[in-house]
């Protein structure tokens, strides 16, 4: 049992290590439990889960299939109520949806009646940002993600990889401090996946944002993250935590895969998952 997996990534978050006035940690999950009622029986999904996400840090969560990763994400976003424990965003417990948090799923969830640009603008529109500013920011975001010239295309005319890029743009244009991604690239082919992982890593690290990435892809977890948290089977607990140190540029997904320690991490996490043929 690892218990609290708090701020172990000393190497990557150097500036904060020595100061006594530590700024509020973006996300702290403290002994959270969550269960569902199925046919009158209580089924515990999340047993007792604690973790934290520091500023500028990328943390991946991997776990065996059906271990309640998506339940965890929805609980963090305030879409599901937890049974017990505390969730603190920037040091505060809040009711409802946390502000300044971006959320993205495997399904791109683009609105088919909106063009790429208008899909990206959705969040700004909801928050009442002036239309001209929203257009400029959204266009810039699409350009950054390599979608220049596709702003006026409807989602149905874009490829899967491009649609997921639009979804990423829609998440990033709101300039969230924290991104919560649930298997965002799982439906993409290998090449598109690597490209969008590169861009994600770059945009997250350059912007000093924090990223919590839920995935079943161990290689994705290791290549992107500063820290990988392995979850147990249901009821879910933290089974192991790895600080990933690969000694290479962390925004190049091919270089991270090439580094000598990469497969060592992958093998150990694979062993932790304790996958058995069923």
């Amino acid at each position: 049992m690892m218990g609290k997996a708090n701020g172990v990534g000393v190497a990557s978050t150097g500036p904060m290590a020595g100061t006594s006035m530590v700024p509020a940690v973006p996300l702290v999950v403290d002994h959270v439990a969550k269960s569902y009622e199925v046919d009158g029986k209580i089924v515990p999904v999340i047993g007792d889960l604690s973790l934290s996400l520091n500023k500028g840090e990328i943390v991946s969560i991997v776990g065996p299939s059906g271990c309640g990763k998506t339940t965890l994400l929805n609980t963090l976003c305030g879409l599901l109520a937890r049974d017990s424990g505390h969730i603190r965003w920037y040091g505060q417990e809040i009711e409802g949806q946390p502000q300044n948090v971006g959320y993205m799923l495997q399904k791109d969830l683009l609105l088919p009646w909106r063009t790429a640009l208008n899909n990206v603008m959705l969040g700004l529109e909801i928050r009442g940002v002036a239309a001209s500013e929203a257009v400029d920011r959204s266009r810039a975001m699409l350009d950054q993600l390599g979608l220049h010239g596709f702003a006026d295309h409807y989602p149905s005319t874009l490829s899967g990889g491009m649609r997921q890029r639009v979804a990423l743009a829609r998440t990033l244009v709101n300039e969230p401090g924290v991104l919560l991604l649930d298997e965002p690239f799982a439906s993409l082919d290998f090449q598109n996946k690597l490209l969008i992982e590169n861009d994600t890593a770059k945009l997250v690290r350059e912007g000093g944002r924090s990223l919590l990435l839920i995935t079943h892809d161990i290689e994705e977890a290791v290549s992107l993250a500063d820290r990988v948290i392995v979850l147990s089977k249901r009821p879910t607990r933290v089974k192991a935590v790895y600080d990933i140190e690969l000694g290479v540029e962390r925004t190049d997904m091919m270089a991270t895969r090439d580094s000598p320690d990469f497969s060592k991490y992958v093998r150990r996490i694979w062993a932790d998952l304790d996958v058995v043929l069923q």
Partner: protein
Amino acid sequence: MTTGMENGINSVIPETAQPLRLPTRQRWHKLRTMTVILATQVALLALLLGFWEHMTASDKQAAFMFGSPSAILGFLGQMARDGSLWRDTYVTGLETLLGFVIGNFFGTLIGLLLWYSRFVSRVVEPFVIALGSIPIIALAPIIIIWFGTGLISKVAMSTLSVVIVALVTSYKGAIGVDADQINLMRTLGASKFQIFRKLVVPASLTDIFAGLKLTVGFALIGAIVGEFMSSSEGLGHAIFKAGSLYIIPKVFAALVATIALALLLTFVVGRIERLLMPWRRIQ
């Protein structure tokens, strides 16, 4: 392998930049298929009419019982010349259109608003089912007592034929919206009204238009049944009158006008759908 990754972001575009337009040969093929289908349809219709004409040409009794295409055409010409064709079609068209618009407006509005409260929708559900199961013709006597024998009673009949269908289809569309999409809106900070306006209403458009196309026929049935009960003009009136005088070809002539009216309304709804949902054209 590594070389492809180097230029990162911008390398995505060339491979996927194909706009979805069919090449000329494929378009030509599609056009040809459509022409063949149309030609087959025309041939089928001609065959049917030819058979009908042939069977009734030599047999007086059959001609009396079933009419004949030439007789129907003759009546259509006569009705067009004396103006009754246009007046009857106009009257029935107006009744149908008013019933269609009023019924769909209120039905859709209520159906969409029911999305707002699961409690209210569950309370009203049995009432909606009960109202929906009433055959409209059973209401006709009451409606004539309440609204008289003029235009309003036909519009009321037409409206009642439409409103429940519109309500049910739009409500089904509204509650069918993907829960993940609603969650996404919530994480973007949307209020319930914003979710309704920016997500639920446009997402329901597909179902709403399916309902609109379905209710063109219902609105027409309502208007014609209303005319059957009591009227002095309209296509339903013409059908009823010709039928009671055993002038079968004239019944068919009025029926042809009714079908034309239904096709026209369906066509207009289809046009409006294309106009309001441009993103579906491109697929």
